[in-house]
């Protein structure tokens, strides 16, 4: 039987991951150790959590540039709530996530109701949130609380020398949650439908506006959650943190096989996409002789490849339609 066309990009993603990981193990014995895996999951946790939210946005045919600023904003807000108001970090995290989701929802309303390009609205959101960081705090501040040190001390040992941190566990739960939302709820399927063909989705009875608003609220939720994880992980807040993370998240989504034009892709692909970016970084660190900018070069090359692959797949689809009409 023929493999379903929808899985082609995911298969390509897995092939790239296997190739890179295999190369790492072949070149460096230590690469096969679970220590590397544990570090990969931890170091890329906040990126992957953000990218899960970004997956929904891109699936719906949109883009969210505000997520990097959101991470920094949430960090600064939490630092203020914990050290300034003496709030418990968990409560501060919940408040931050609610604020982040609400901000996402507001951007969603502007995008859906006024039919404005998501690029522009979320660009505005990006500047707005980054500016808000400085309004609250100008410098890097530590988040001092016993809970935060407990969070960073939490470890689940893996076979071998590695372990799973709290960030990694949260990230894995987020990915599972994302998969359930994407594939087992009507909202999730409607996101795919709108990204596939918005006009048709409307005629098929999909609540387009409500879905788009929820997509950006969800992206706000995930990026705020990512901000919480980032703040706990670094135990500090810095207004200039996570600059450019929105672009890393988009790259993870695309390398994970989600169509940039929307409608096709998998949350699990985004997970692999994020891991691939981490593996590239680790490989270059292991090598030692290469400068870190090679990470960017490799990721750029991979993006070129995946975007061309996507084009070929969409063309085979639209070709069917155009050829016959």
């Amino acid at each position, binding site marked *: 039987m023929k493999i379903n066309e929808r899985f082609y990009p995911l298969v390509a993603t897995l092939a790239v991951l296997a190739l890179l990981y295999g190369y790492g193990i072949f070149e460096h014995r230590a690469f096969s150790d679970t220590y590397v895996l544990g570090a990969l999951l931890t170091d890329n946790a906040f990126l992957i959590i953000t990218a899960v939210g970004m997956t929904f946005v891109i699936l719906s045919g949109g883009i969210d540039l505000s997520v990097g600023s959101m991470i920094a904003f949430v960090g600064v807000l939490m630092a203020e709530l914990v050290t300034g108001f003496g709030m418990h970090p968990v409560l501060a995290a919940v408040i931050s996530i609610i604020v982040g989701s609400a901000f996402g929802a507001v951007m969603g309303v502007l995008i859906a109701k006024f039919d404005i390009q998501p690029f522009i609205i979320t660009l505005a959101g990006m500047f707005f949130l980054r500016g808000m960081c400085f309004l609250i705090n100008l410098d890097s501040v530590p988040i001092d609380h016993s809970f935060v040190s407990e969070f960073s001390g939490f470890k689940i040992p893996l076979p071998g020398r590695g372990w799973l941190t709290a960030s990694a566990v949260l990230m894995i739960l987020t990915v599972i949650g994302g998969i359930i939302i994407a594939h087992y709820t009507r909202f999730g399927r409607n996101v795919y439908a709108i990204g596939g063909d918005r006009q048709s*989705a409307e005629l098929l009875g999909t609540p387009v506006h409500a879905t788009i608003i929820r997509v950006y609220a969800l992206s706000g939720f995930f990026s705020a959650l990512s901000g919480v994880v980032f703040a706990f992980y670094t135990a500090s807040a810095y207004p200039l943190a996570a600059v450019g993370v929105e672009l890393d998240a988009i790259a993870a989504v695309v390398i994970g096989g989600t169509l940039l034009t929307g409608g096709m892709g998998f949350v699990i692909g985004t997970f692999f996409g994020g891991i691939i970016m981490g593996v590239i970084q680790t490989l270059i660190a292991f090598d030692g002789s290469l400068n870190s900018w090679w990470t960017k070069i490799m990721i750029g090359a991979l993006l070129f490849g995946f975007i061309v692959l996507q084009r070929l797949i969409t063309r085979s*689809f639209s070709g069917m*339609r155009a050829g016959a009409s």
Partner: protein
Amino acid sequence: MAQATQPQQTGKTVLSVRGAGKFFPGVKALQDVDFDLHEGEIHALLGENGAGKSTLIKVITGVHPRDAGSVTLNGEEIHPNHPGDAQALGISTVFQEVNLIPTLSVAENLMLERQTRKFGLIAWKKTDEDAKAALEILGLDIDIHRPLGSYSVAIQQLVAIARAVALDARVLILDEPTASLDAEEIKSLFRIMRDLKAKGLGIVFVTHFLDQVYAVTDRITVLRNGELVGTFVTKELEQIDLINHMLGHELAEVSAHRHQDEGNYTGPKREIQVKNLGKKRVLEPVSLDLQAGEIVGLAGLLGSGRTELSELIFGTQRADSGLVFMDGEPVMLRSPRHAIRAGFGLCPEDRKQDGIVAELSVRENIMLALQGRKGWLRPIPRAEQQQLADKMIKALGIATPDSEKPVGQLSGGNQQKVILARWLVSKPLLLILDEPTRGIDVGAHADIIKLIKELCDEGLALLVASSELDEIVAFADRVAVMRDREKVSELTGAEITQENIIEAIAR
């Protein structure tokens, strides 16, 4: 053919439209139209472009609110606000363009927003079973997990029908479903339509292929210019009469034939020869001669190749055979730009889409072709533009307060005049008019016809494609008749009558 169409005269009326009216600014899209659909019948809805077919469907399905009349479903008046409402009431529509999601699987397209859920999560097993069941109604056996876009348009259309029918539909509206299907696919579509009809569904079938109408329908309703011509039993209506209903005016109120008073043009003799111009799968090679001071009519049904011939001559589509000669010299027609440089002009059928630039002013719209011909490096001075625009507004009687009003705010007839003015200032040799009077009210209609005649006297060669036969008969010196993407006949002088044209189309 006939055995397929047992008349179902006893069928209960399921959908009834009375006195439906829909008016857009300057256009009566639909006026006082009655339409009845019985249970278990296939009812053809016919008419040329702009006859009101789509408007009627949009009024029934709630895309447009109706301005007059009533729509009743099973005896109850309905007021759907959008197609979703109509669908919930039992009126499903399948459009020519497949309105499904190509990137989603077949099953998901069938079940979108209807998935079975357990504890708020989609139960995929049950949902897939439902999808399979929906396809079984049509006898369609395909892998429901593959993306819809990987299947042919025919299958996609059937999936759309399956979705429409799965929703307890009592009325199924098929809007040009066969436009992109091949002969085999059309056959299986017809088989499915007959099955659904046997199950008691009322089917409205919009098409412009007359042989299909006779193959599958029980009754025919013909619209023209937004008005009802009549409803007929298919078996009792000869094809030639049907064409007559679609194109001709029964009342021959035709004014003086132009070909009786021709010869007003006395300038130099210039001629344009179209030799074997054609394009694979678009138009069979056509030859046609046009002379300065002559009006050639282009007659034929919708889809007969009228518009295609205009587009090939103007270079909108590139011909793959044949040439156009001007005074014996071949002309390069690779794009509209070349055609305009050569002295051709085209007033397109879809005025809003292809003709006017709605946001630009009357003056700017008028200057487009002339400026395009000169090239953007040599701008026309503002004073000269103003002078030309004012002259044209006066000469053509364009009703606008001043030359700076955006064209989009004018009525259809005045927009058409602006497009005519655009070509006139660039002094073309050949002007192609595709449906010049479509959607224009009666007063402006007469103006445009008068203008066409005057232009001709000034030495233009005119090629006018129209579905209004009385119009063609009234002004054409010669008529080329098109059928099935081919020129089938050419009539001159006294031969030009509505009867002869209809006969040439039906033959």
